[in-house]
């Protein structure tokens, strides 16, 4: 079966649409032309009808008339001879009369009647009584050059009054007129010839005394009639209305031409046709052209309408076939042209695009024409080149990036290496555990702890504002600065003042550092807190819960020189825990953009069963991890947990 989808797909292509539009256009053109043809059809029909009417029928009728007229003229000439002879006979000696007198005159004229068979003057019985007993003269053309004349031709006993032609003429003759005989078979050697005669009367007063006649082969007329054949199935006939007879072509009646048919045998004849009329006969429409010929005879030419109009129709059909062929040809050539000029380049371009997509960037598309596709190919080639360059750039870039990353890794190792990893597990007085996780390779947080002397233990946690390499560099110098100043063993307030001075000294980048520090006398549990703008640590007194440590407010390090820092002193009891951290914990962000927050931190830290610093750090870290999930770390996360065990 026919698949609609194939057609749909075809009409959705450029090619299909253009071909469709072309066919549509040609179809509309054909429609307009056919409307025009229908309009012109009536006009064409009129022209053809006129052609049949005047050119064929009238022309033939005219020709026949002319022939008959010629014969009639001969007959009239003979009638004058006959008339003279009759009057001579009446007024002169009847004894001198014999047929040789009019015969010589007849022969003189007869020589010129080339297409006439015979001519004669026939007197009514008893009108004249010639001494030889013959009351007619007759000349007969045996062959073009041999003329026979006299009584020997017809014989002495020839009695014209019994002949049909004489009866026909005599019956129809009026004075001053002429009459035709119906066609009849000749005598003797002319028994196979259809003859006709035209006669002119010779009168004595009103009394017909004789007939001058000319006879000729009727087929000369009939042939002219039969020559009329506008279309194969036309009906042509010569009808004698007065006598009700008709001569016609054999095609119609299936008989010889010599057959006389009564008019009432012609079924359509009584339709009372006008000069040009249409009638139906045996399921066929005919157009009749009728012309009177002579002596009550009429020429009928009846052409089947479909044959008459067939010409016009066949012309139209031809035109349509030509137009249809043109549209098919145009569509086909358009199809071929589009296939070659549109489909082929598009195929080539898509193939190339596929191959380029597959990784072959050395591919060059080579299309010279059509120019539109050549431009497209140029663009594609340029794109390929650009991609190649871009890939090379990326390669260079990623090599650079790798280098930077590996350098950052080294930096990270250096940064981590400056953080203490000794947990002083051999010192029973306290446990300490710390951890730092940077958001990037390197970070701005740090912690530190060390013994200042035999009994004083220092620990710190700090956060350089900012992240990454700048913060890391600042962190390194700050940590080193704190360590070196701590070694000077200054009183805490002097110590922190000096640290701040040091941080301010080379700080052109507006960094500041928040720091929380503690100095514990491990023998007594006395502790000194120094807080420079850092978030307060959580402290758990023995058997209590973690709570924020109340701290004196001090400015962060690195902003202002020469400021005083308030120092706080306190005392640690056995089992007290200090949890110091940077705000990277509470500001850790998860995938939903939520912050870890103080509340969760407090809840979590109070839910941890163990008092061991390393356990606390690990549990908090795990909780942060499970909170942020796979969100990228937002800030460095650092914790220092100090647990005081006992005084010495």
């Amino acid at each position, binding site marked *: 079966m026919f698949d609609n989808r194939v057609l749909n797909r075809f009409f959705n292509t450029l090619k299909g649409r253009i071909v469709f539009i072309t066919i549509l256009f040609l179809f509309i053109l054909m429609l307009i032309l056919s409307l025009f043809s229908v309009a012109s059809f009536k006009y064409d029909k009129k022209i053809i009808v006129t052609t049949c009417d005047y050119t064929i029928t009238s022309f033939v009728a005219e020709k026949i008339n002319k022939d008959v007229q010629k014969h009639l003229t001969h007959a009239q000439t003979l009638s004058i001879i006959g008339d003279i002879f009759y009057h001579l006979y009446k007024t002169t000696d009847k004894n001198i009369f014999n047929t040789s007198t009019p015969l010589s005159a007849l022969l003189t004229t007869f020589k010129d009647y080339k297409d006439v068979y015979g001519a004669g003057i026939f007197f009514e019985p008893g009108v004249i009584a010639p001494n030889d007993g013959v009351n007619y003269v007759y000349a007969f053309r045996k062959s073009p050059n041999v003329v026979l004349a006299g009584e020997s031709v017809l014989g002495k006993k020839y009695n014209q009054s019994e002949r049909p032609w004489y009866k026909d003429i005599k019956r129809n003759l009026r004075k001053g007129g002429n009459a035709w005989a119906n066609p009849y078979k000749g005598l003797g050697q002319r028994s196979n010839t259809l003859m006709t005669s035209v006669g002119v009367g010779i009168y004595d007063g009103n009394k017909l005394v004789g007939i001058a006649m000319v006879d000729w082969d009727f087929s000369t007329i009939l042939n002219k009639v039969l020559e009329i054949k506008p279309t194969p199935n036309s009906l042509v006939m010569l009808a004698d209305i007065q006598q009700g007879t008709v001569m016609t072509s054999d095609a119609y009646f299936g008989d010889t031409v010599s057959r006389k048919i009564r008019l009432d045998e012609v079924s359509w004849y009584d339709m009372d046709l006008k000069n040009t009329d249409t009638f139906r006969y045996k399921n066929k429409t005919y157009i009749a052209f009728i012309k009177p010929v002579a002596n009550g005879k009429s020429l009928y030419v009846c052409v089947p309408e479909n044959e008459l109009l067939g010409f016009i129709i066949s012309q139209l059909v031809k035109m349509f076939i030509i137009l249809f062929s043109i549209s098919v040809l145009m569509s086909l050539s358009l199809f071929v042209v589009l296939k070659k000029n549109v489909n082929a380049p598009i195929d080539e371009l898509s193939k190339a695009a596929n191959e380029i997509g597959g990784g072959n960037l050395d591919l060059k598309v080579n299309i010279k024409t059509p120019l539109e596709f050549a431009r497209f190919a140029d663009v594609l080639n340029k794109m390929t080149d650009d991609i190649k360059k871009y890939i090379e750039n990326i390669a260079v870039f990623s090599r650079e990036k790798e280098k930077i990353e590996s350098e950052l890794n080294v930096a990270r190792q250096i940064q981590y290496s400056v953080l203490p990893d000794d947990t002083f597990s051999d010192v029973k007085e306290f446990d300490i555990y710390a951890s730092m996780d940077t958001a990037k390779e390197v970070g701005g947080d740090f912690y530190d702890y060390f013994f200042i002397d035999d009994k004083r233990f220092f620990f710190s946690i700090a*956060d350089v504002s900012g992240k990454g390499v700048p913060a890391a560099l600042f962190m390194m110098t700050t940590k080193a600065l704190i360590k070196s100043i701590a070694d000077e063993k200054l009183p805490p307030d002097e110590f922190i003042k000096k640290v701040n001075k040091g941080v301010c000294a080379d700080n052109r980048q507006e960094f500041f550092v928040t720091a929380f520090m503690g100095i514990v006398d491990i023998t007594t549990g006395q502790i000194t807190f120094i*807080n420079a*703008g850092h978030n307060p640590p959580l402290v758990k007194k023995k058997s209590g819960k973690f709570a924020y440590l109340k701290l004196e*407010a001090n400015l*962060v390090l690195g902003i202002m020189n020469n400021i005083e820092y308030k120092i706080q002193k306190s005392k640690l009891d056995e089992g007290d825990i200090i949890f110091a951290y940077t705000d990277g914990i509470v500001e850790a962000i998860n995938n939903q953009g939520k912050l870890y927050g103080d509340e969760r931190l407090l809840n979590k830290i109070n839910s941890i069963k163990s008092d061991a610093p390393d356990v606390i750090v690990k549990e908090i870290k795990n909780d942060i991890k499970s909170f942020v999930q796979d969100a990228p770390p*937002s800030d460095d996360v650092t914790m220092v947990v100090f647990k005081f065990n006992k005084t010495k």
Partner: protein
Amino acid sequence: MNFEYALNDNSLNVKLTGRVDVISAPVLHEKVNFLLSSNENLNKLIFDFSEVSYISSMGLRILLDFQKTMAQRGSMKVINVSSDVFEIFKATGFDNILSFS
């Protein structure tokens, strides 16, 4: 954090809502810096903290940065600070660094 601002002849009034932290502070920094650099005659920068619930060290750092910039052009002020947030300014010592009213 929401960010609204009103720009008069030579003063920029920035009203913040919510938290000024690691997420919002860089955005605030970028936006205000853009306004400062595109309006050279600005000599007064006011931060309205009436709707601010928290400020982190990152927020403090950008305030400090604006403070340094405005010190050369005119003045910077933080107004309508809630007591909770003011605690943070106090804890970090920023209450002595910035001007409030």
